[in-house]
């Protein structure tokens, strides 16, 4: 099970947790497993066509999945996914 770090704005959608775990062989499968466990996250993560919303950055460990294989990037058991939306507070 990969660990997923949840940003502040999504924590209310996962019961207030900062980290959750979800199973899946690639980034897309892990995020879809997350959306199944916590349905409120689905529209925040995915657009109507099933692709990742452009305003959501996802990192596999410390690398942006956009420069890896996107949603098809393989995920191992000990990997950490970071979901990161932009923040503008100052």
């Amino acid at each position, binding site marked *: 099970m990969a660990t997923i770090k949840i940003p502040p*704005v999504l924590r209310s959608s996962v019961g207030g947790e900062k980290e959750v775990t979800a199973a899946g062989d690639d980034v897309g499968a892990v995020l879809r497993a997350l959306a199944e466990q916590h349905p409120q996250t689905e529209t925040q993560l995915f657009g109507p066509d099933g692709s990742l919303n452009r305003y959501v950055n996802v990192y596999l460990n410390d*690398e942006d999945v956009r420069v890896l294989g996107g949603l098809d990037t393989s995920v191992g058991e000990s990997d950490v996914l970071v979901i990161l939306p932009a923040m*503008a507070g100052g």
Partner: protein
Amino acid sequence: MSPSGAEVIRQIKQQVEEVDPAEVSEHLGNGVTLIDVRESEEWDRGHIPGAKHVPRGYLESRIEGAQPDRDARIVLYCASGQRSALAAHTLEDLLGYTNVASMTGGITLWKDRGYKLEVPRALTPQQRDRYGRHLLLPEIGPEGQAKLLDAKVLLLGAGGLGSPTALYLAAAGVGTLGIVDDDDVDLSNLQRQIIHTTDRIGTPKVDSAEASIAALNPDVTVVKYPVRLDASNIMEIIEGYDVIVDGVDNFPTRYLLNDATVRLGIPVVSASILGFDGQLSVFKPHDGPCYRCLYPVPPPAELAPSCGANGVLGVLPGTMGLLQATEVVKLVTGAGEPLVGRLLLYEALGATFTELKVRRDPECPICSRPAEEITDEEMGVFPDYEAFCAAAG
């Protein structure tokens, strides 16, 4: 009978390697560490470009800050070649340096031969005292302090992030601090905006910030912009600044700032905060990614709450603002590795830092193109700009 001082010097000069100024000039910048062992007043009147300053009286305690490698090539000089010969002898004999030479004739001969001198900005005795702890750091030193005194840094906002940043940059001796803020001080600001005070509630934040800065460090010139940054004034305000500190509280201004700074080639030290979480990065145009490479589009309004709506730990902008101030000092002085191409996340409740890589987007609509091609009409625009702004109210 003990030998005379002149005799000791003569003997030591026979033991150390001496090099001619011509040879030093030829090898300047070629991996040779050149060290000026004269006193501060002599250094201030002019020194060899690229030299480091380690007064002979501090040689043993500070040489490792200038060159820790015992086998590195080191050339020492003074006014005439005597003190540098004695210092070279000390380095070899007592400290185990293996490749040290003293420059014949010192800087007097160097000048006579017509080689270049660098005259640093002279610090007043008060400034030597005020910035003394910086002067001791090899990474800052008198040259770094001079750069700070000559630097122009623009702070966007004298709010949560801008308050601690402004105070520490003022204390560090940044010569010119521009502050853009059109708000007045409010009681609810004082939980975190430490540059303001209770008795200044209701006064413009730029005036309040100026008063605190003047009280802290009279060396600093404050340039006040009591306006809201927008497309009509941004180019005029930011042009001429060396570094911009972004602590604004909304996305449209962050995108506008990004586009304008890429166009002008000005680095931005950017931070944002919410609740117990902070983000920090340095966007240095064309050397690293820009804000749009990191965030191609902003999140919808429901995923982008403000601190006013969501709350923020009062200490958090202090933490993030001081990380920003640190990055500013590094950019101005050239010390260390700035946070370019990296995003630092801080989560205060768990006390965790996470570092992520940020790559340049080869298809970035702004920074993948020559800066001069970015037009006024494009700046601050993103695909659903109108809808976003309407939703954000």
